C-alpha cells in the first residue's frame, strides 16, 4: 500500500477552499474544476475497506474509512462540485466559490467518516460553509435567511453533539456504525440528522434559505446538506420504522407546498424535501432493495435537481426575475435552457430512459415486496404528484404558459456546458444504469426495464399530466406564500417575545419609580441627621465634649468594678 492511497479524499477540497482567495482568476478556475476530478481519482484508488486511524484523547478516530456507500456518495458529491463550479465560474464571488468547495469537501469527508467526532467536525463545517453560500448573495433577504439557517443548523449540531456524548459515555466507542433507537442519546443523534434532511417540523429552513442564494449558490447548496443527511441515516439508522412516517410526510409536504408556490426556485426547493422524503422512506423500509434504492435515488437526484436548478438559475441570471407570475414564454429565446430544464423535469418525474426511472422505482418495489400496502399506494400517488409539482409545473410556468414578452438569450458558455453535462448524465444513467447499480452497497437483483414497468409508469405520468392541464385554472399563480412551521419562530415567537418585553418594561418602570422613591426617602433621612443642621453633624463645644468623655470613663470604671 503506497502512501498516496490513504489521503482523505475530502482534504484537497477543504485546503483548496482556503487557497482559492489567494489565487489569480486563471488558477482559481483550474482549482475549481481540477480539484473535484482529483477527488474522484483519490476515491477510486483507495484500497477496498481502507481505514486510516488516529489516536485522539484516548479515542480511536477514523477520518478515512472506506465503504461502498461512502464511495458512491463521495463520487456524486465530487461530480456535483465539478459541474457546480463550472456553472458558477462566471458569476459566483470568490468567497462563494470557496464556500462551495468547502461544503463539497465537508460532505465528502462525512462520506468517509468512520467515527462520530470526525462526522461532527465536518457536519459543523458544512453548516458554516452553507451559511456562507446563502450570505454570498449579499441581499437583506439572504442575510436574514442565512442567519435563520445558521441558528437552526447550529441547534441541530448541538443535538447531534449531545447525542454523541451520550452514546460515547454509554458505549465507550466513537465508531460510527448502525444504531438502534434504544436511548435518548440515539434519539438526539437521529434528530440532529433529520434536521439536516429537512424533516418535519423543521423543514422550512430549506425553501426559506436556498432560494435566497445566487444562481450558482443554490445549485451548490442543493446537493450537500440534505444528501449527507441521507448518507448518515443510511449508515446510522437503516430500517428504523419511524423514518417511513417522516419520509411520507416530507413527500406530500413537498408536493402540496410546491403546488401553491410562485417563486420558481422555491418550487424546486420544496421538491428537494419531496425527493429526500422518498429516500427516507427507503431507509425506513430497510431491506437491501430499499436501501439500494435510497442510495441510487440520492445519486440520480443530486444530478437532476442540480440540472433543474441550473436551468432556473440561468433564467434568474438572464432575467433577474424569479416569480412564475413574471415569467413565461422563455422557450422561444432560451431553447437550450428550456430543453435542459425539461430533461431534468422528466428525470425527477422518473420517465422511462431517464435516471429517476431506474432509481425511485426500487423504493416502491421494496414497499410492495414487504407488503406495506399503505406505503406503496402513497408512494405511487406521490410519484404522480412529483410530475405534477416539478415535472410539469416548473417548465410550464417558466418556459411556456402566457408570453411574458421577455426574450433573453441562453446564458454564457460555462453555464450552458454545465447544463449539457448534467442533461447528458440524466439520460445516460437512465439508458445505462449498470455502472450505478455496480456502485450500490448491496448486490442488485432489479430489472427496471420490464414491459409492465414502462407501461404502468407512462400511464401514471401521462394521466397526471392530463390532470395538470384540466386543473390548470386552479393552479394559476398568485403573489402569495404559504405559511409553514417556521411561522412559529419567524412570527409568533418574536411577537410573544415583544409582548413579554413590553410587559417587563412596564413592570420595570413601576419598580423604578418605587426604587427612586425609596432612595429619595433614604437620602432625606440621612440629610435629616447628618446634614448641615442634622443633630449628628452639629458643631459641639469642646467643654461639652470633655464632659461626655468624663461621663463615659466614669461609667466604664464603675462597670469594671462590678
Amino acid at each position: 500500500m503506497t502512501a498516496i492511497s490513504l489521503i482523505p479524499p475530502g482534504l484537497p477540497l477543504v485546503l483548496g477552499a482556503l487557497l482559492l482567495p489567494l489565487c489569480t482568476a486563471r488558477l482559481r478556475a483550474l482549482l475549481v474544476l481540477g480539484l473535484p476530478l482529483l477527488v474522484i481519482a483519490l476515491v477510486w484508488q483507495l484500497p477496498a475497506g481502507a481505514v486510516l486511524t488516529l489516536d485522539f484523547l484516548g479515542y480511536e478516530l477514523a477520518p478515512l474509512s472506506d465503504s461502498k456507500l461512502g464511495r458512491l456518495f463521495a463520487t456524486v458529491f465530487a461530480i456535483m462540485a465539478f459541474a457546480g463550479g463550472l456553472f458558477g465560474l462566471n458569476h459566483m464571488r470568490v468567497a462563494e466559490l470557496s464556500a462551495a468547495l468547502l461544503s463539497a469537501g465537508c460532505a465528502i469527508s462525512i462520506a468517509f467518516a468512520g467515527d462520530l467526532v470526525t462526522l461532527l467536525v465536518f457536519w459543523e463545517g458544512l453548516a458554516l460553509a452553507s451559511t456562507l453560500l446563502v450570505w454570498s448573495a449579499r441581499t437583506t433577504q439572504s442575510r436574514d435567511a442565512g442567519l435563520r439557517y445558521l441558528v437552526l443548523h447550529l441547534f441541530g449540531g448541538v443535538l447531534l453533539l449531545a447525542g454523541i456524548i451520550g452514546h460515547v459515555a454509554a458505549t465507550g466507542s466513537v465508531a460510527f456504525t448502525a444504531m438502534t433507537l434504544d436511548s435518548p442519546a440515539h434519539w438526539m443523534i437521529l434528530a440532529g440528522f433529520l434536521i439536516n434532511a429537512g424533516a418535519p417540523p423543521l423543514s422550512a429552513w430549506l425553501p426559506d434559505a436556498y432560494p435566497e442564494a445566487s444562481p450558482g449558490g443554490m445549485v451548490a447548496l442543493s446537493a450537500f446538506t440534505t444528501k449527507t443527511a441521507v448518507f448518515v441515516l443510511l449508515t446510522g439508522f437503516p430500517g428504523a420504522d419511524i423514518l417511513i412516517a417522516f419520509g411520507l410526510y416530507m413527500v406530500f409536504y413537498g408536493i402540496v407546498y410546491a403546488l401553491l408556490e410562485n417563486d420558481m426556485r422555491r418550487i424546486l426547493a420544496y421538491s428537494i424535501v419531496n425527493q429526500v422524503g422518498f429516500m427516507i422512506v427507503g431507509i425506513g423500509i430497510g431491506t437491501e432493495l430499499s436501501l439500494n434504492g435510497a442510495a441510487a435515488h440520492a445519486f440520480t437526484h443530486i444530478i437532476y435537481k442540480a440540472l433543474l436548478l441550473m436551468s432556473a438559475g440561468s433564467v434568474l441570471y438572464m432575467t433577474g426575475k424569479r416569480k412564475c407570475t413574471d415569467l413565461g414564454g422563455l422557450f422561444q429565446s432560451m431553447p437550450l435552457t428550456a430543453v435542459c430544464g425539461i430533461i431534468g423535469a422528466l428525470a425527477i418525474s422518473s420517465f422511462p430512459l431517464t435516471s429517476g426511472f431506474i432509481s425511485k422505482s426500487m423504493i416502491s418495489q421494496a414497499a410492495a415486496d414487504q407488503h406495506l400496502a399503505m406505503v406503496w399506494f402513497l408512494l405511487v400517488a406521490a410519484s404522480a404528484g412529483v410530475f405534477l409539482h416539478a415535472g410539469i409545473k416548473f417548465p410550464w410556468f417558466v418556459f411556456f404558459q402566457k408570453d411574458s414578452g421577455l426574450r433573453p438569450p441562453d446564458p454564457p458558455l460555462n453555464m450552458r456546458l454545465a447544463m449539457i453535462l448534467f442533461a447528458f448524465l440524466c439520460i445516460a444513467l437512465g439508458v445505462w444504469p449498470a455502472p450505478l447499480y455496480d456502485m450500490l452497497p448491496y448486490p442488485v437483483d432489479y430489472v427496471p426495464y420490464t414491459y409492465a414497468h414502462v407501461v404502468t409508469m407512462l400511464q401514471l405520468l401521462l394521466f397526471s399530466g392530463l390532470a395538470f392541464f384540466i386543473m390548470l385554472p386552479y393552479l394559476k399563480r398568485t403573489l402569495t406564500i404559504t405559511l409553514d412551521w417556521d411561522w412559529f419562530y419567524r412570527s409568533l415567537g418574536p411577537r410573544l417575545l415583544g409582548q413579554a418585553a413590553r410587559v417587563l418594561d412596564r413592570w420595570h418602570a413601576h419598580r423604578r419609580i418605587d426604587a427612586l422613591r425609596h432612595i429619595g426617602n433614604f437620602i432625606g433621612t440621612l440629610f435629616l441627621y447628618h446634614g448641615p443642621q442634622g443633630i449628628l453633624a452639629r458643631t459641639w463645644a469642646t467643654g461639652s465634649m470633655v464632659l461626655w468623655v468624663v461621663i463615659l470613663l466614669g461609667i466604664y470604671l464603675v462597670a469594671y468594678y462590678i
Partner: protein
Amino acid sequence: MKQHWLVRPGSIRLLWIVFLGILALTVLAGLLMHPHAAFGIDGSFGFYAWFGFASCIAMIVVAKLLAIVLKRKDSYYDGD
C-alpha cells in the same frame, strides 16, 4: 410578429389530439401486460391511469384547501 408554432391555437388543438391519442395508447398497452399485482387492485385494467389522475386531483384539492388557511401575501414576512 409571427407567432411561434407552439403557441398558435391550431397547433395547440393538434397537440391535445396527439396527447389524448397517446393516453389511449398507454391504457390499451396495458392489455398486453401480464397482471402481477402485489395488492390485487393494482393489477386491474387501467389502474395506474385512473389512480394517477385521481391522486393528482386529490392533491390539488388538498393544496387549495390548505391555502385557504395558510395563504398570505408574499410580503408577509417583509416587516421582520
